[in-house]
């Protein structure tokens, strides 16, 4: 088979994987070797669905011995199957990298024969890329649930980020839809990688590799949302505990897209991107805004409000803490104001050190009043035309959302990445 055809099959099979980030590790260039990595990562293109392309995202093979219900590559699907050779893969990465198409490689795989057999093939390919081709760019490698410790060590030395997919938000769902992947076969390796990062595991066989930090860009995971009946509450509780106990860098959500017809799956229903978007907003609040998961959602109302974002929602439920005086509030409180992000809060702190902040300064500080105006005062006064009336704020904010949707603006793309 021509490389072009292989690439078509294996990129097509990888496209439902969400993660495509190249951030989290900064590695300097070395004379005579290709590549480096930037802590912030760099996107290189955006596909027709608006998602960022930063890595060459492919499967090593789509020949799968598993039969997970939701997955396009399940063994009972009749699709063309193929496998890349390590050399083909290395050539693609190097050729694309030299042309500034990508930051590196995201290598995932179907389970060929067994988890260990597949991981060995993946390690072979990555070793060729790192050692023979001297590639110093970014590598994100998927680890397959059930992989043995020795191979995880080798994988973690070769890759910058390792991820194990939790796949579904509960053990019951996993048993139902992905019976070959158990909860323990995912969480076990995940805990092993976590410990490896702390202890900086090394592989003696890979002694020629100069960069030897173990999984320097940390671990991530992803789960499908909407294929099974779990609530946002369950999903967010699970991600909060993964951040805490597994010390993950990221938990990705992927709104369910039906690719297979199966009696166990919801028939022909796509999960709205808005749900995914709200989950990411909640995730952001936990990671960058010092919110605890219990402040964002509770069992009584287990789904996030589609009309108002989780931060506004929190503010409306704690309206006694508002309005916030921009010139006096501590940084942590500024962060809690709807419409003010991490950068905005830092700018306010910087500006008020020089002199007190007035409403007319806010546009120069790049702070939009659209949502914030209901929740702030400057030197004791509200913004012009704003009446602090908690009961009407919800309707006004929800009205904005409806208006935007009527105009055809789609929710759910990660515009948050900007802030």
């Amino acid at each position, binding site marked *: 088979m*021509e*490389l*072009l055809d292989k*690439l*078509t099959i294996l*990129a*097509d099979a*990888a*496209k*439902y994987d969400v993660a495509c980030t190249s951030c989290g590790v900064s590695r*300097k*260039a070395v*004379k*005579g*070797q*290709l*590549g*480096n990595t930037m802590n912030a990562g*760099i*996107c*290189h*293109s*955006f*596909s*027709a*669905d*608006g*998602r*960022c*392309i930063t890595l*060459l*995202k492919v499967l090593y093979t789509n020949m799968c011995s598993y039969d997970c219900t939701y997955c396009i590559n399940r063994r009972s699907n009749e699709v063309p199957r193929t496998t890349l*050779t390590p*050399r*083909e893969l290395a*050539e*693609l990465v*190097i*050729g*694309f990298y*030299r*042309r*500034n*198409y990508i930051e590196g490689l995201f290598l995932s795989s179907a389970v060929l024969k067994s988890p260990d057999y597949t991981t060995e093939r993946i390690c072979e390919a990555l070793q060729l890329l790192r050692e*023979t*081709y001297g590639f110093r760019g970014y590598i994100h490698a998927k680890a397959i649930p059930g992989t043995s410790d020795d191979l995880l060590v080798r994988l973690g030395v070769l890759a910058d980020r390792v991820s194990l997919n939790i796949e579904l938000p509960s053990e019951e769902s996993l048993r139902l839809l992905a019976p070959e992947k158990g909860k323990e076969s995912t969480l076990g390796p995940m805990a092993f990688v976590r410990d490896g990062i702390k202890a900086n595991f090394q592989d003696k066989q890979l002694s020629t590799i100069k960069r030897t930090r173990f999984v320097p860009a940390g671990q991530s995971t992803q789960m499908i949302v909407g294929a099974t009946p779990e609530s946002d509450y369950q999903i967010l509780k699970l991600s909060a505990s993964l951040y805490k106990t597994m010390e993950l860098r990221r938990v990705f959500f992927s709104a369910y897209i039906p690719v297979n017809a199966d009696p166990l799956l919801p028939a022909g229903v*796509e999960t709205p*991107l808005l749900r995914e978007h709200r989950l990411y907003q909640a995730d952001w609040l936990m990671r960058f805004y010092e919110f605890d998961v219990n402040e964002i959602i509770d069992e009584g109302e287990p789904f996030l409000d589609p009309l108002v974002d989780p931060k506004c929602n929190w503010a409306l439920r704690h309206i006694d803490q508002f309005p916030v005086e921009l010139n006096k509030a501590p940084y942590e409180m500024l962060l809690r104001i709807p419409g003010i992000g991490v950068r905005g809060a830092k*700018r306010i702190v*910087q*500006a008020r*050190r*020089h*002199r007190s902040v*007035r409403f007319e*300064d806010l546009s*120069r*500080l790049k702070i939009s009043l659209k949502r914030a105006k209901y929740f702030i005062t400057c030197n004791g006064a509200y913004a012009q035309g704003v009446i602090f009336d908690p009961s009407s704020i919800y309707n006004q904010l929800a009205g904005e959302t409806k208006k935007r949707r009527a105009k055809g*603006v*789609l929710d759910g793309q990660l515009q948050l990445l900007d802030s």
Partner: protein
Amino acid sequence: MDNFNSLIADAELGSFSTLMDDADLIYLYDGTLEGMLSSVFAAYGRHEHPKNIVEAHDLQESMLCSYVPIRTELRYAARVQKGIVEQLGDRAYEDVKKVFLSDDTNKGGVIYRFLRYAFKAGRWSMSHISEPPVADFLEIRKQVENEAHYMLMFVRFAHLQNGVFYAHIEPKASVVPLITDHFARRLNVQPFIIYDSVHGLASVFDTERWWLVSSDEINLPAHSCVEDDYQALWQTFYDTIAIEERRNPRCQRNFMPKRFWGNMCEHIPPELRKTKPSTETPTHAARLQAGSQKLLDAPL
């Protein structure tokens, strides 16, 4: 430019009154950084507050304004530079240079007003982000930095027959000097040229060092024998990776404005893409079997 020089001659013969209403006063400079800094020097020297400092070339004359052409004097420019470095720090001078790379026709005035403010307010003035002179200055700096970052994202190199990797860009600010270090570090194993045709400026990297070349045109050899194959692979990957059910062109353009598409091979429409008959050149599989050494020696 002749016209500009004769204006300067007139001005220096004293045909200008310095008692003009500052609100209508506009300085003209020759478009160089030194010219702009000389204008800043002149404003202090002449005890004036020009409303703007613009490039003579960009001038759209208005009856309501008075124009004063300022002669570029390297020693005055150097004194302003020294003043910035000593009073505001090295970083501030780097920022002035960065803002000067902008295509904004008002950048001269913005730099001038920032310097007026900063020389008075002192070393920390860069953090006075709610003051208009500082905010305007930082806004243009951000635009230049954003444009440079877009280039790190969207520059596309093509491999030419002479072994050089070549990228053509059309940025909104003259960012070639800002982006070349990044590529010279990352792609240090390959010679490359980045050519900005809007500002007529190229950077040339020979795998050891890089330098700038001003040029309004560039003659290039054809693509190497592997280039079109790699473009085809990338185009295929690009088209395949999108999820059809999630098509969202608005979001796509938001992150990747259309103005960049012309220099990105994944945006060449399918009917214009080069598809070579596989009989002309060895197939990938054949080349792959040719062994690793050859691949490592030759730029791909």
